[in-house]
């Protein structure tokens, strides 16, 4: 058997020629599609290229009208370039090495408008994410940070859909307050009942005490004794000693009166306590009623928003949009540029592909190296033109021994963009990422599409600075975002959140994330919490008062009869006790006066008798 097919040789030659011809004519399309595919994997959004023109003999490639959509804002381009000219080295291409001496990127702009959506189909996104997940396994710190940020964001964003009007949140009509109030469970009812019991008991105690002290009987007896003494006859001097003895008796009786008075005073002080207690009853009932109102309002499950929840809900997407962007840049860098020390040790590095893994052997020349990219800005009215330079974009920095430096500046009217990236992975990772934007609108940084439920940003100017430092064991991200001239819109203008947020015109959000080994710290703060709290008070105040009054009315109705009984009992008891005390006081006081009168009377008689006797003696002497 002939091994070589004679006809096959001709056919082989024909096919080979066809392949070469096909490549000459269709290589442009093939490269274009490859670039689109790679671009979509990097940016997770649509990548469009008008044409690719490869001049093999001149080692030059021209790309016209490259548009990369923004994954966070489907009708905006993250970047757009009118023309890109590559001057590549041909020989390394045959060993699958891309060495490009110079790239000129003309008409470069960011934030330009798109007519068609730049969102990739879900299937394609899932495909890219699956691949990325496989590739990301290696950088544990970075992945932990991304996961943590994702978890925090998920937690914050869950709180977003707050689409209730104040009437729905505190719908008093819909809640059957009477069903929530059980008389027996009311604190105010319990206070009324216990007060009633205490009044009756205290009244009885005082009355019993009065009875047990036998004050009336004792005063009567004292009076009788006094009356008996009153009957003493003082006719002559011989009666004076007896009368004087009676006076002493009267003093003793007075002591008895004082004892009675003391007992009356003790009852008086008890009754004063009682009076005080009854006087405090309305206050006690009101306090208990307030507790009841709070308890019932809690039972009513009034949907009162928490200021902190609103704050986190509002700022969540803002810091996430910034941090996502920087993490996306770091992720892309991680994917293509390994740390030099890793590749040095291994003598090869791995790049995960859809099927299997590509093992890249570290050779004398890097597999990908763009020495210089010169960027000139677009003059289009749309978007923000960007100029700058990228040097030494290389996959194996330890071979070229140079870091990659990216400096981009964009300025138009009040808008300013500045990015400085130093990707230093020659040996250890020593990356710096600094992105500043000033005067960009909320729409331009993708906040217009944030899902706040019923609410959305319609305007606002953003000044933001995000800085990230990354080394082998640590990633530190600091962000400072100021948004001024904020305006929100809502489909339902009665929305509580809209009412609250309408009062916020500017906000400052500061965040920082530090991932050291497996420990991650994340902090976010803003200056809008107190303003939200004030706005909430204003919004809820009136409605809360309405609910409060309604419950108070219902409690009042329920406890009306008991309250009236208590009032009557309290008043009657007070009158009774007061009368009794007054009577006792009156009696003891009159007894006191009575004794004093008798005493005076006897003393007078003694004096008169003594005087009469003296007169008689003197008259006898002078006779």
């Amino acid at each position, binding site marked *: 058997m002939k091994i070589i097919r004679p006809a096959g040789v001709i056919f082989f030659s024909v096919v080979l020629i066809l392949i070469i011809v096909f490549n000459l004519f269709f290589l442009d399309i093939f490269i274009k599609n490859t670039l689109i595919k790679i671009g979509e994997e990097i940016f997770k959004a649509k990548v469009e290229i008008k044409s690719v023109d490869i001049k093999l003999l001149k080692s030059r490639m021209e790309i016209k009208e490259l548009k990369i959509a923004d994954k966070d804002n489907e009708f905006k381009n993250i970047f757009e370039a009118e023309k890109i000219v590559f001057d590549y080295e041909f020989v390394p291409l045959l060993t699958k090495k891309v060495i490009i001496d110079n790239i000129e990127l003309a008409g470069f702009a960011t934030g330009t408008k798109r007519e068609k959506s730049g969102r990739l189909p879900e299937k394609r996104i899932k495909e890219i994410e699956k691949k990325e997940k496989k590739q990301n396994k290696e950088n544990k710190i970075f992945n932990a940070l991304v996961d943590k940020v994702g978890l925090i964001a998920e937690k914050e964003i869950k709180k977003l859909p707050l689409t209730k009007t104040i009437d729905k949140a505190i719908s008093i009509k819909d809640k059957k307050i009477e069903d929530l109030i059980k008389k027996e469970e009311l604190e105010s009812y319990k206070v009324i009942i216990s007060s009633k019991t205490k009044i009756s008991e205290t009244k009885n105690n005082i009355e019993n005490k009065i009875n047990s002290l036998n004050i009336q009987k004792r005063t009567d007896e004292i009076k009788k004794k006094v009356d008996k003494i009153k009957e003493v006859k003082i006719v002559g001097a011989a009666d004076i000693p007896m009368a004087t003895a009676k006076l002493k008796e009267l003093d003793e009786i007075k002591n008895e009166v004082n004892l009675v008075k003391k007992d009356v005073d003790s009852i008086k002080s008890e009754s004063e306590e009682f009076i005080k207690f009854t006087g405090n009853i309305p206050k006690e009932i009101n306090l208990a009623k307030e507790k009841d109102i709070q308890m019932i309002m809690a039972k009513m499950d009034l949907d009162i928003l928490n200021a902190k929840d609103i704050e986190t809900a509002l700022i969540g997407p803002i810091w996430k949009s910034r941090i996502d962007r920087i993490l996306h840049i770091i992720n892309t860098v991680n994917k293509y540029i390994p740390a030099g020390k890793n590749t040095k040790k291994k003598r090869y590095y791995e790049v995960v592909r859809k*099927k299997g893994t590509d093992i890249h052997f570290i050779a004398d020349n890097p597999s990908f190296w763009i020495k210089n990219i010169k960027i000139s800005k677009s003059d289009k009215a749309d978007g923000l033109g960007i100029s700058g330079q990228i040097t030494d974009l290389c996959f194996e920095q330890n071979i070229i021994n140079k870091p990659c430096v990216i400096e981009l500046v964009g300025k138009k009217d009040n808008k300013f963009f500045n990015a400085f990236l130093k990707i230093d992975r020659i040996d250890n990772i020593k990356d710096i990422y600094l992105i500043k934007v000033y005067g960009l609108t909320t729409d331009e940084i993708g906040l217009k599409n944030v899902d706040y439920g019923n609410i959305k940003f319609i305007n606002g100017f953003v000044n933001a600075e995000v800085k990230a430092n990354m080394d082998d064991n640590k990633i530190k991200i600091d962000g400072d975002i100021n948004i001024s001239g904020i305006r929100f819109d809502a489909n339902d203008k009665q929305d509580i959140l809209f009412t609250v947020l309408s009062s916020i015109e500017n906000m400052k959000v500061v965040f920082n994330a530090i991932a050291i080994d497996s420990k991650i710290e994340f902090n976010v703060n803003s200056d809008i919490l107190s303003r939200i709290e004030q706005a909430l008070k204003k919004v809820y105040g009136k409605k809360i008062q309405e609910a409060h009054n309604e419950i108070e009315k219902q409690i009042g109705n329920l406890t009306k009869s008991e309250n009236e009984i208590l009032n009557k009992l309290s008043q009657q008891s007070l009158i009774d006790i007061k009368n009794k005390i007054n009577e006792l006081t009156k009696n003891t006081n009159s007894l006191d006066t009575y004794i004093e009168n008798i005493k005076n009377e006897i003393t007078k008689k003694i004096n008169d008798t003594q005087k009469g006797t003296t007169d008689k003696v003197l008259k006898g002497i002078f006779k």
Partner: protein
Amino acid sequence: MIKTVKKILNFLNSQADPSQIAIGAILGLFAAFLSPAFFNVIFIFLIALLLNCNFGVFFVCTGLFKILTMGVDPIGDIIGKWILTQDFLLPLWKTLSQIPILTLTNFNNTVIMGNFIIGVIFIPLIWIITIKSVEYYRKNLRDKVKKFKIMQILTGVDLIERGEK
């Protein structure tokens, strides 16, 4: 497709060299196993054109072995990774990676390298099995198979096709 099957059957029924079928099957196997790199498919197709192999068998085997890759790829990935990351072989791979065109075969991909090794191991097996099978068929089954209705239908395919046109 029917034409291809008919050609294969005609070849089997003829006295042609069975090694042509074996070469076709082996090239089909490599075309399927190394397909993750498009360059490999083109390259093997060109070899198939050049070598005196049965083209029908080449296509059919490419299809059949392609189905097999679902099971073979994960094994190839493991074998490939092991081979490509052995220290003593690294200088070889490094040298190979400097050779123009060769890198287009994606030999540094674990699945392609692993599948290539599996393919190489299977060459003698496929060669022997194919040749023995053809010989056995021609000796024991050819006359019986010729009597099958399906064979008669296939023999009449041309007529039917012409009639349709």
